[in-house]
């Protein structure tokens, strides 16, 4: 008990005590004592040196999302800290558990504009679940324990520990107790059976019910429960972008993706349903469209662990304040076996219409079409991907095309920046995802724009031999902005065309194999080579810049105002 160790060593031992075996980071001046101590812990903690702090935090997000574990990031003060701000915001909005350790200057230098000093706590407070500065070595262990507890419980989110040099270098004794309680913080609401009974009554009375499954289902490992409940009561299940893969794409009750570029059936039927059962989702504006014309015939039952989501965007008729798993378990015995065959058939009808009027031509265009489009590329990659592949996306058209066309067979199979829409998220997130699920194939779809925001992480792939399959949907444009310019800004392509480098030559510089794909007959063999190859592989697929993502609910329109193409509404 009398052993005195540095705060930096307390941090390392604490990480080990929390079961951390992998951290993502980048060293620098104010975090050097920690990195020096890390040198002694390399047998228990693998550090992934990314090429930029933003890469480190997005990689940690990808790691956390597929593994269900808390991602850990270590960066220095000042620019190191500010470079993780985007990732913190992203993780906060998408409920990803992270513990981010930032270096900080000495206590005596705080507030003096010292070299690489920034008010990280002030920056982090609005974009984290918790952020605290540590000035004394003896405060590290309890703060670290609380950080892991807060990040991973309740609605998960990022936590920042801002470690002054005094705390890192000072001496203290080693004692570590995992945190199980924080006064005033109630991660697990007490289930109110009255709410559950009322919810069950609503479900049993409904004739046209639809489940809206969000990421809360995956976060509480409730995928199987959700499917069982849906099957018992015969309820179609629509997923939000982050809720995708909660139910397999091939399941007969899977109704498709919600939202602006979602599937016709769930969006259209949102305004035909008499009950929406929202599970672990938050009625994002990209899901609802115009809220005054949303769920026009439906009562709304909202199941969420975060009470602040109730009535935030959409007025609900009933609530169950609980995590999805607990709520669905409690509901299961109270929900009657039911059949809603004609309601279910209406989904099939809309899906068939979408297939024939939009999807078929996109995925399987006429032979005469000289250029590839992103839908057929994603479709082809998905068909050839090994069982249980994880989809990682960047942001924009590549994200919507891949979310729409990738088929999911396993839960926790999508990693994408949903709420913040962070371009540049994809490549580092894919690296982290592969490290979090080393036995699964990780397939990244990115655009030429987003790829170039974080392409320095090819260096990380090279250094660690990370096996990620990268598909650049390259149209030499910022495609999603181009689509909006085309539809809503009179084809004025302001600052969206891009002159791009030779991406395959670039990959080669990092010793990563890849090839260009220009035409449809090159596509299948190239995809086969990509999946047959051991190690990272890049396909630079040249696609039609004029191709757009449809269906689309135009911004500000109601959820069932659906464009099928430039000229036609559903």
């Amino acid at each position, binding site marked *: 008990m009398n052993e005195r160790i540095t705060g930096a060593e307390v941090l390392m031992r604490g990480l080990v005590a929390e079961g951390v075996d992998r951290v993502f980071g980048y060293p620098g001046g104010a975090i050097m004592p920690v990195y020096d101590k890390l040198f002694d812990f390399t047998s228990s903690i693998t550090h992934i040196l990314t090429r930029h702090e933003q890469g480190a935090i997005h990689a940690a997000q990808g790691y956390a999302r597929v593994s269900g574990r808390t991602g850990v990031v270590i960066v220095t003060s000042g620019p190191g800290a500010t470079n993780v701000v985007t990732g913190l915001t992203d993780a906060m909005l998408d409920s990803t558990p992270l513990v981010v350790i930032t270096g900080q200057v000495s206590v005596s230098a705080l507030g003096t504009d010292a070299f690489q000093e920034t008010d990280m706590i002030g920056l982090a407070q609005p974009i984290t679940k918790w*952020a605290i500065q540590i000035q004394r070595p003896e405060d590290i262990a309890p703060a670290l324990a609380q950080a892991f507890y807060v990040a991973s419980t309740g609605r998960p989110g990022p936590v920042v520990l801002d470690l002054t040099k005094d705390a890192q270098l000072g001496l203290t004794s080693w004692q570590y107790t995992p945190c199980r*309680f*924080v006064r005033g913080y109630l991660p697990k609401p007490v289930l109110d059976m009255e709410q559950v009974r009322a919810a069950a009554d609503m479900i049993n009375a409904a004739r046209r019910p639809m489940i809206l499954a969000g990421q809360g289902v995956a976060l509480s490992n409730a995928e199987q429960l959700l499917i069982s409940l849906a099957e018992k009561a015969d309820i179609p299940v629509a997923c939000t972008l982050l809720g995708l893969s909660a139910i397999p794409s091939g399941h007969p009750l899977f109704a498709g993706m919600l939202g602006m570029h979602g599937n016709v059936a769930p969006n259209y039927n949102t305004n035909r349903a008499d009950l929406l059962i929202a599970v672990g989702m938050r009625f994002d504006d990209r899901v609802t469209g115009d809220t005054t014309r949303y769920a026009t015939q439906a009562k709304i039952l909202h199941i969420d662990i975060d009470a602040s989501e109730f009535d935030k965007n959409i007025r609900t008729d009933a609530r169950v304040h609980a995590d999805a798993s607990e709520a669905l378990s409690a509901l299961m015995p109270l929900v009657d076996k039911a059949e809603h065959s004609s309601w279910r058939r209406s989904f099939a009808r809309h899906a068939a219409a979408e297939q024939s009027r939009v999807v078929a031509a996109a995925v399987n265009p006429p032979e005469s079409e000289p250029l590839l489009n992103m839908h057929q590329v994603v479709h082809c990659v998905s068909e050839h991907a090994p069982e249980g592949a994880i989809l990682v996306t960047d942001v924009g058209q590549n994200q919507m095309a891949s979310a729409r066309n990738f088929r999911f067979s396993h839960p926790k199979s999508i990693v994408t920046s949903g709420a913040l829409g962070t371009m540049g998220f994809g490549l580092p997130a894919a690296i982290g995802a592969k490290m979090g699920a080393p036995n699964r194939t990780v397939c990244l779809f990115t655009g030429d724009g987003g790829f170039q925001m974080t392409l320095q992480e090819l260096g990380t792939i090279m250094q660690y031999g990370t096996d990620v399959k990268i598909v650049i949907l390259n149209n030499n444009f910022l495609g999603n902005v181009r689509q909006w310019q085309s539809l809503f800004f009179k084809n004025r392509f302001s600052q969206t065309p891009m002159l791009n480098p030779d991406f395959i030559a670039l990959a080669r510089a990092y010793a990563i194999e890849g090839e260009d794909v220009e035409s449809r007959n090159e596509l299948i063999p190239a995809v086969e080579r990509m999946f047959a190859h051991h190690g990272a592989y890049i396909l630079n697929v040249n696609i039609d810049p004029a191709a757009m993502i449809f269906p689309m609910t135009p911004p500000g329109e109601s959820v069932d105002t659906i464009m099928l193409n430039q000229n036609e509404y559903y």
Partner: protein
Amino acid sequence: MQQTCLYTVTVFTDDQVGLLNQVSIVFTRRRQNIESLSASPTSIPGVSKFTFTCWSTLRMMEQVVKQIEKRVGVLKAFLHTDDDIVYQNIALYKVPTRSLVDNHVVEKILRRHNARILEITEAYTVIEKTGHNDETRALFEELMQYGLTQYVRSGRVAVTKDAAEHFTAFLEEQRRLEQSQADAAANSNDN
């Protein structure tokens, strides 16, 4: 559009650096102008209390309170209207002594406004008045005639009218929860 009225938000927090910022940015992000604010320790060691007043809608304030409660370190937040609480502000007024004396108004003002004098010098007199906004405002307007040179009003302090002490009950519940967690941890260590 919902009607706006003056809401009082009371927030109990751990006594830690940075919590006031965390709570106030919840208002700021939603463009809610804080009308007044007071922050102080409570009778319970380690617990601070912030009292905000804000002109807003019920819907907005309900959202604000829920978001405040999500912050780690915030123990509990309550939303009140003026009907639920007994509240006071304190105001100080600095007036040239000569102006008061020459006009023979000191007694009249003190009596009518139930105010008191804190300090008199040859140059100035400092008057104190506690009351609701309209009352401190009324004295302000009267003293303007006599060359008022400084006026300051505190944030609101408030206690609830409810017979039940919800925050005390909440703290007791938290203590019980903490104990049961500790017991569970001890049991799992034994096994």
